[in-house]
């Protein structure tokens, strides 16, 4: 192996409270090599990425180990050494492009700023290089693109612009921190393809940080699997995918390639919800156009679409939240008023909502007992011993220890919080639970457990689920029927197996084909299929 361009030895990064975020990590990155860093939240992957720039985020400090970039030591080292390396030799691409650009400056100026700051190029050189990058990254209207402001371009374009900005000094190393996680699947493909092309074209080495094994498989040569700040397994991408050695890696690989249904056969009850010609307006703009659907007891209907497709609006309309909606909704043979204020207490009880982010769905100042006890008290008038028993039963039902009742949400993990949210919905003994992206904010293995919990509860309580998600893998496993939405309209609906069975057509096909698969040649296959030679 040639001399590594990045050499990290025994890296220890400590949080302000003294906890070690990474513990003795070694990284070697050869010139032009792409190394994937994989792990769930808290694994320390972003921390390692930032350490490559000699930086600790949010009060974290690098307390041990060495970092060398191109044989030049920056940790331990002087501030000047680090400043000369940052942006020039090692550049960082963040998850949120919208937060990385100054909204008041034109994109073009921001894209050459680093090069001018480091004095790496004169202004005309920097502009010429920027325009080349704009063309390589296939940004639209290369002549006028630099004159635009960040809010004038789409999310995917902004992400590409940020990659171009990071390339401004022709760095040796790119640190890519979840660069496609915030993007829709169809946009993710574009960015992945262009990013891979760029790295190969200029021979840039990269640290690719993500929680999605299938994505990293497409782009990296080697993969490091991390957990709780330590290395679990390291190997070539091929080896990790095909013959993982460690149990944790095997579970990660298995989870991502699981397609078997969680619930095999089910008897459906009578129809419980019907929505006919629903329209929702937000001020002047229309978010939903004539959406109709039906749902039976014990059935799961998945609503699928990318951001802006109106799937969350649909969920909120059924819950009665938007200020103005037209159309008719019926619930258990009775008319369902469009506004939740006009619904009876019993109607409110029978439709429950579970949200994407358990952090903001739970009041940080209420204990679990208060959170779960209130619906029991409010709807069923439980008091004293009956209330305590009810709370204990709910906790047991969602697989949590009974002594969690006295805890505050702050002391629970993300998955545990989401279980509490599910328990709170169950407390009302509902007929319909609207699940709005309930697993999207969770780590894959935790999300899998929550999915299994939901499937079990559905059988036990004969619940109807309206499952809003952008994750087609989840849909396939849990939904009886699927409804695909695009720009506020329903483009396809039918039994899930039918929708997922090739030949796929139209927008649905594009969506399904865009979901990364757990094999190395997936991206090439997609490209080959897309551009018939």
């Amino acid at each position, binding site marked *: 192996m040639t001399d590594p361009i990045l050499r990290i030895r025994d890296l220890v990064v400590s949080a*302000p409270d003294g906890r070690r975020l990474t513990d003795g990590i070694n990284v070697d990155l050869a010139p032009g090599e792409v190394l994937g860093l994989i792990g769930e939240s*808290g694994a320390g992957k972003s921390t390692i990425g930032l350490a490559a720039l000699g930086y600790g985020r*949010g*009060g974290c400090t690098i307390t041990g180990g060495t970092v060398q970039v191109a044989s030049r030591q920056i940790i331990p080292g002087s501030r000047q050494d680090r400043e000369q390396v940052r942006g020039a030799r090692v550049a960082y691409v963040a998850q949120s492009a919208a937060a990385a650009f100054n909204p008041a400056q034109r994109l073009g100026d921001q894209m050459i700023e680093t090069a001018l700051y480091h004095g790496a190029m004169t202004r005309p050189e920097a502009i010429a290089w920027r325009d080349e990058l704009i063309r390589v990254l296939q940004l639209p209207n290369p002549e006028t693109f630099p004159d635009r402001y960040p809010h004038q371009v789409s999310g995917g374009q902004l992400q590409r612009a940020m990659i171009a900005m990071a390339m401004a000094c022709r760095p040796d190393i790119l640190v890519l921190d979840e660069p496609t996680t915030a993007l829709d699947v169809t946009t993710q493909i574009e960015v992945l393809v262009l990013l891979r092309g760029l790295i190969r074209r200029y021979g840039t080495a990269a640290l690719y940080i993500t929680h999605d094994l299938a994505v990293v498989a497409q782009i990296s040569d080697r993969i490091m699997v991390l957990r709780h700040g330590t290395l679990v397994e390291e190997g070539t991408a091929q080896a990790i995918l095909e013959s993982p050695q460690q149990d944790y890696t095997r579970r990660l690989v298995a989870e991502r390639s699981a397609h078997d249904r969680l619930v095999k056969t089910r008897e459906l009850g009578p129809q419980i919800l019907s929505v006919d010609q629903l329209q929702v307006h937000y001020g002047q703009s229309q978010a939903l156009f004539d959406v109709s659907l039906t749902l039976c007891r014990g059935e799961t209907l998945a609503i699928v679409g990318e951001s802006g497709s109106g799937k969350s609006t649909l969920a909120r309309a059924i819950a009665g939240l938007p200020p103005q909606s037209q159309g008719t909704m019926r619930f258990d043979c009775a008319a369902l008023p469009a506004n939740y204020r006009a619904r009876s207490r019993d109607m409110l*009880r029978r439709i429950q909502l579970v949200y994407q982010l358990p952090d903001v*769905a739970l*009041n940080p100042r209420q204990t679990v007992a208060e959170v779960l006890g209130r619906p029991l008290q409010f709807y069923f008038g439980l008091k004293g011993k009956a209330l305590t028993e009810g709370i204990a039963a709910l906790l047991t039902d969602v697989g949590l220890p009974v002594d969690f009742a006295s805890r505050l949400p702050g002391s629970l993990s993300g998955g545990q919080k989401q279980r509490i949210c599910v328990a709170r919905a169950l407390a*009302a003994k509902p007929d319909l639970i609207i699940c709005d992206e309930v697993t999207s904010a969770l780590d894959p293995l935790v999300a899998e457990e929550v999915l299994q919990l939901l499937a079990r509860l559905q059988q036990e309580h004969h619940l109807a689920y309206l499952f809003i998600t952008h994750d087609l893998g989840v849909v396939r496993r849990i939904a009886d029927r699927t409804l695909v939405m695009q720009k506020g309209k329903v483009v396809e609906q039918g039994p899930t197996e039918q929708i997922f069975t090739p030949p796929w057509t139209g927008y649905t096909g594009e969506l399904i084909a865009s979901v990364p698969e757990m094999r190395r040649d997936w991206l090439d296959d997609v490209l080959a299929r897309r551009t018939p030679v």
Partner: protein
Amino acid sequence: MRKPTFTAWLGLAIIAVYLLVLIAGPWLAPFGQEEIIGSPFGDPEPGHLFGFDQNGRDMLSRLLFGGQMSIGVSLSAVLISFSVGIPLGFLAAIRGGWFDTILSRFVDTIMCVPVLISALVVLQALGSSLPVLILTIALLDSTRVFRLSRVLAQGVNALEFAEVARLRGEGGFWLIRKEILPNVAGPLVAEFGLRFCFTFLFVAGLSFLGLGVQPPFADWGGMVKDNQQAIVYGLYAPLYPAAAIAILTVGVNLVVDWMLAGRAAPQGDNR
């Protein structure tokens, strides 16, 4: 809440001393506030630690009497302004619509006139009795409390746990008491400390202009004004009440800083 720092302890100690003055000031005072027992601007002597004021009254006694008056007026004004401002602000936030619009525009209208001018007009028109003074300051101040509590409540009300409570069918009182108040209590308590300081200085300012507490009752702002000519002769007389005002302001701010620092500590993103 974080453990009190050294400066926070200092502030708490200062506040404790002032609370003692508020409760027991007149009983601690060796002389009455109207008793003329020495020469004007007389020097300190045994039994008269701080000397005498412009009329020959014992300075220490007047400071103790004035403390009760000044702190009492400010404290009741702030308490009233919070008990008016917070409920209205919270209601405006969760009701929205015309209720919010009318209240907010009304508050904007009051706020565009400087507080001192409004207060001067009202006090001139109604005469400066103690209840009028307290109510005027309280109501003018409640506009700011209204604004703050409205914006804090709007922030919490937009979160999903508040939405869950609304969708459950909870009434406004539950929303305010259980979902909103516990989550905004910190900033409101800090604001209480700050507003108390401002009000205190404001009362002192009004007294200085002759519209606050009326003679012969002592209060610190008025005492600074009454003794001001002593400065010309290089005497300390006006500095004692001025220092009393300054030290309380510093003490309250030390405590508020500590409370706010606790709120602003990094919460730790995705760790």
